[in-house]
């Protein structure tokens, strides 16, 4: 399976990420796949190491999913870390992707959650079609999995 993101896919994704950032006043959002690869990033986070953040987020989410499984839950679909200045909100977008929202005290957790709920279905549909394409292609006899 290989994941191919076309220009058109990226435009659609960026449209919703932009909408999310401007409506929630979060300073940035990342869309990452559950293996830790960064898919898209929108907003202003020049000082952060985005690639390490993606790898750690995926691991964090994976570890939490295992905790959920041990507790008899299917999954925890959202996670929230509160810091003194920075806060991080993680939400599952379908089966394969995690939306990471970084925000400070200029906005509120309630607004962030509200705005995420508004874009998550659309993002989920776009991403599902990207991942489904990858799955179809991997059955091509010319390409090993």
């Amino acid at each position, binding site marked *: 399976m*290989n994941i191919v*993101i076309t220009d058109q896919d990226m435009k659609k994704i960026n449209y919703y990420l932009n909408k999310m950032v401007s409506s929630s006043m979060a300073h940035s959002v990342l869309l990452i796949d559950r293996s830790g690869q960064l898919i898209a990033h929108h907003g202003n986070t020049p000082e952060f190491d985005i690639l390490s953040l993606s*790898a750690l987020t995926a*691991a964090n989410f*994976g*570890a939490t999913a295992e905790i959920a499984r041990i507790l008899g839950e299917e999954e925890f679909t959202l996670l929230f870390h509160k810091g003194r200045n920075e806060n991080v909100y993680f939400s599952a977008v379908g089966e394969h992707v995690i939306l990471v929202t970084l925000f400070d005290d200029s906005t509120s957790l309630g607004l962030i959650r509200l705005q995420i709920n508004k874009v998550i279905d659309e993002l989920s549909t776009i991403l599902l079609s990207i991942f489904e394409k990858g799955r179809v292609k991997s059955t091509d006899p010319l390409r*090993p999995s």
Partner: protein
Amino acid sequence: MPFINFSKDEIQCKIVYYGAGFCGKTTNLQYIYSQTMEDIKGKMVSIDTKGDRTLFFDFLSLSLGKIRGFDIRVQLYTVPGQVHYDATRKLVLKGVDGVVFVADSLKVQRKKNIESLINLAKNLAEKGISIRSIPLVIQYNKRDLDGTDSEILALDILEKDLNSMLKVPSFSGSALKGSGVFETLREISKLVVKEVSRKIMLLDKQLR
């Protein structure tokens, strides 16, 4: 599972260093980190316990230049080697494109190397990947101990134990001193990029 981003002309691949506890996976990454130029590497992230054991993983991102106009970025990960961290190893293997199996040359670790390789095959199989088809390179680490008081296995014994069926490229090395580290990285990168490159060519044909 490489990420091919046509919007940014970028390809991201994931390479995992696998092997038994204390075989030198983290040391490989540390050496790579210490010897690469600032502009091609990211920060190295390690989640370890106080006793030098990797608790979750180490992570290092490297830029390998361009193929067919695409920027190639590889993410290097290590797994915790200890038997009881199998759930973590499975998590790190998610979306893997290539594996470096680091074998410990110490004679006392002979059984642990074999067990770890079997564990790799099992964990890959659970993800629908055959150990025979994924890009794989073996590194026989700690060869610098040859001639010291520590008893180490001869290379042909290690080859027979670990590579007689797989027949993948193998390198002797010392992650601590640096020998064989970049040879191993170069080979696994070559195999992964070759595979990705083939996929791009197929995609190009499909898209035209």
